[in-house]
């Protein structure tokens, strides 16, 4: 593997997280500049290292640049690219177009997720806003559902603070991502999926390949005193 991320805290965290569970060999870790928009130099280096795959974390505009230039350099045909869903969200996918085809992402949700509540959400969102929802949209919607479920449990009476908090922790709602519950440290326990960017009509979408982790909890849950 070759790992790439911008040289700032989130980038370093992303690579540290990858290395925590990855058992294979990491040939090189390349830190790009935070404001970098051209990655030709790094791509030449990846080509010379000829790894089995590349993992990169570049959210926002930098990620669009990375995807377009990766495809333009021809590397997408020889070295598969993996990334967290933040490195290729729905808006970035629309801006990258065919360049992103064949890339793999990992996340807790995709617009192509096959459950009734997610399908209904994607349909309604697309009709209202004329574009596909992003993961962030999904999270906001889930959050509203969560708060709604707790409000229902206390009949809208927010003076019952403790009862409201207890109801929140139960997470009694149908999450768009399928399974969702809270851990003892109040972080979510949820499943993660591998997606592959594929053509669907005129656009490109992250198709779910398979579930990669069931009931994942965060790495520090064991140390939490809560």
């Amino acid at each position, binding site marked *: 593997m070759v790992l790439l991320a911008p*040289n700032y805290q989130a980038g370093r965290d992303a690579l540290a997280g990858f290395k925590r569970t990855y058992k294979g060999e990491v040939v090189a*870790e*390349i*830190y*790009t*500049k*935070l*404001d970098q*928009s*051209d990655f*030709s*130099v*790094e791509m*030449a*280096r990846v080509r*010379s290292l000829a790894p089995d795959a590349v993992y990169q974390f570049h959210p926002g*505009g*930098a990620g*669009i*640049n990375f995807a*377009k*230039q990766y495809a*333009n*350099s*021809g590397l997408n045909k020889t070295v598969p690219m993996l990334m967290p869903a933040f490195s290729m969200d729905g*808006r*970035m996918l*629309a*801006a*990258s*177009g*065919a360049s992103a085809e064949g890339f793999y992402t990992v996340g807790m949700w995709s617009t192509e997720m096959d459950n009734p509540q997610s399908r209904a959400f994607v349909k309604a969102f697309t009709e209202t806003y004329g*574009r596909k929802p992003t993961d962030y949209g999904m999270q906001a919607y889930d959050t509203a559902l969560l708060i709604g479920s707790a409000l229902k449990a206390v009949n809208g009476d927010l003076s019952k603070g403790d009862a409201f908090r207890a109801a929140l922790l139960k997470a009694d709602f149908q999450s768009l991502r399928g399974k969702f519950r809270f851990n003892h440290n109040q972080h979510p326990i949820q499943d993660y999926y591998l997606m592959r960017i594929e053509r669907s009509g005129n656009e490109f979408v992250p198709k779910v390949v398979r579930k990669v982790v069931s009931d994942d909890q965060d790495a520090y849950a064991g140390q939490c005193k809560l």
Partner: protein
Amino acid sequence: MALLFEQLLNGLQFGAMLFMLASGLTLIFGIMGVINLTHGSFYMVGAYCGAFALGHTNSFAAGVVAALAGAALYGLLVEFAVIRRLYKRDHLYQVLATFGLILFTNEAVSMIFGRQPPMVEIPAFLDGTVPLAPGFRYPLMRLAFIVVGALVALGLWFLINRTRVGMLVRAGADDREMVDALGIDIQKLYSVVFGLGALLCGLAGVMAAPLLAVEIGMGERVLITTFVVIVIGGVGSVRGAMAGALLVGMVDSLGRAYFPQLLGAMLSPEVADMLAAGLVSASVYVLMALVLIFRPKGLLG
């Protein structure tokens, strides 16, 4: 060996892009005495206009025309509406006003074109890679970038050394009061120079659009490096901008390519990683400091 050659080409391509931006900026600074932070915004406006035309007509030529026209017209508008009032003022006023224009332009562009970065595909005739040596292929779009940069350099050389406008530009860079005193309409010259600078930004914008994300704030990312280029090259000199752009392009690309390996061979991996990442980010500024120590007015200033 092939890798070094490829990294040199990458440096050349980055240099070509910086030259298109810096040549206009250095003329504006050198001739008009205006510090123009809006220069990066012209680049963004060009990229957006190019992406818009390309998306609606599917013709790269239309995209180029739209980018050039959009950036140049916006440049002239900015010169007419704002810069014209600031020639006689202190540099600080110019910095404030053009910084405000950056914010204004970003907001205006997101209102007109939306916040979603538009998709720009590489035109079919520039798509893919070409073999330059056995076993070595280079993206055609990047080669085209280098060629366009070279053509711009040639064109500017001709314009500045062989035409009447160029003569005035050279005279203006040396002594603008004297040009004015000799009865030349300096205002018209300023407009031409400013429009030309914006036009070159538009060209850089539309050439970069298929390779980079066309997004709000893309101009600010290149702005600082562009200023570094003109300071290294010497303010007011297009040849200096060319030398500075190539130097910065090469140092940045080769630094990113070889610093991590070089340090990795000498130091422990953790230390080398941190140090290399820092050095890579700072390399062009170290270069600027070195140049200024030995030539305080820049290489060709």
